């Protein structure tokens, strides 16, 4: 599998993503600088976490207009898989590739901790391998991760099964105390209607080795690998 990991000025999880994909999961992964206009032969694009362009104006607002994001739009339009993590999620919502927006955490604090995620549906290239009933223990590190969308958008997300992950407690309950940032419906991650673009605030790339406290993040990447394998098999058939 070939992964392209974008790099904007002030991205800071690009190396974590490359390490997880290349060194831990044994995939081919390379950096793509924000000024590039093409993504090469990538199967999947990872928009990493960080503070692209200093988070100036709004998180992700400036990154969205960078040359590489035009290529990512094209890539997504052609059905390519795109995963936005943390700031990457913010960039994808600003770019209109995912609905809604991410605003300041309700308690105004930056949260850096492990949380639990309930996977709402296995029906996506990002969740198909996650065992049912497995609550993913994954770290978050953000100040503006409170998911917001108007009622109409939320209804659409629910109707189309686009909510992929919700914050839960260690037993899988969707409680308010398990919600670290005030996200509506405890939403931690969603996908687009076509299901090839996903974003989440937690950092699966920082949870791929038990040494780091959890390797549950692997399930998300394993899901992507399986989805890509199925695509290749379908093409060959």
């Amino acid at each position, binding site marked *: 599998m070939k992964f392209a990991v974008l790099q904007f000025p002030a991205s800071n999880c690009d190396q974590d993503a490359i390490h997880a994909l290349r060194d831990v999961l044994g995939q081919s992964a390379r950096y793509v600088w924000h000024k590039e206009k093409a993504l090469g032969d990538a199967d999947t694009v990872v928009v990493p976490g960080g503070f692209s362009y200093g988070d100036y*104006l*709004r998180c992700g*607002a400036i990154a969205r*207009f960078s040359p590489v994001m035009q290529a990512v739009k094209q890539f997504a339009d052609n059905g390519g898989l795109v995963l936005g993590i943390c700031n990457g999620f913010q960039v994808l*919502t*600003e770019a209109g590739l995912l609905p*809604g*927006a991410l*605003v*300041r*955490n*309700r*308690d*105004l604090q930056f949260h850096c901790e492990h949380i639990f995620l309930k996977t709402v549906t296995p029906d996506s290239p990002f969740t198909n391998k996650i065992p049912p009933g497995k609550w993913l223990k994954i770290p978050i590190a953000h100040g503006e991760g*409170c998911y*917001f*969308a*108007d009622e109409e958008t939320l209804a659409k997300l629910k109707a189309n099964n686009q909510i992929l992950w919700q914050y839960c407690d260690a037993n899988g309950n969707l409680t308010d105390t398990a919600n670290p940032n*005030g996200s509506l419906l405890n939403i931690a991650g969603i996908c687009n209607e076509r299901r090839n673009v996903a974003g989440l605030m937690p950092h699966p790339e920082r949870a791929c080795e038990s040494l780091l406290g959890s390797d549950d993040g692997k399930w998300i990447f394993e899901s992507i690998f399986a989805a890509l394998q199925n695509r290749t098999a379908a093409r060959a058939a």
Partner: protein
Amino acid sequence: MKAKIVITPKKAVVDPQGKTVRNALEQMGYQGVAAVHVGKYIEIELAPGTDKTAAQQALNDAAHKFLSNPIIEDYKLEIE
């Protein structure tokens, strides 16, 4: 000529910053503050001789597309 753009959070969006400022004002003894909304102010200096109507149109476009996020924010544009 100057363009002034005031961006405020939409009413439906929870504004913890506004609430915190309101609470602080209350604690300081300022009475009668019903609500506070914290937003952004952007000032754009326009080149001499710029056509006001054209600038208005272009800046509305920019404010809608880039300077504000219509999902969570409202904006007001003034050119003087």
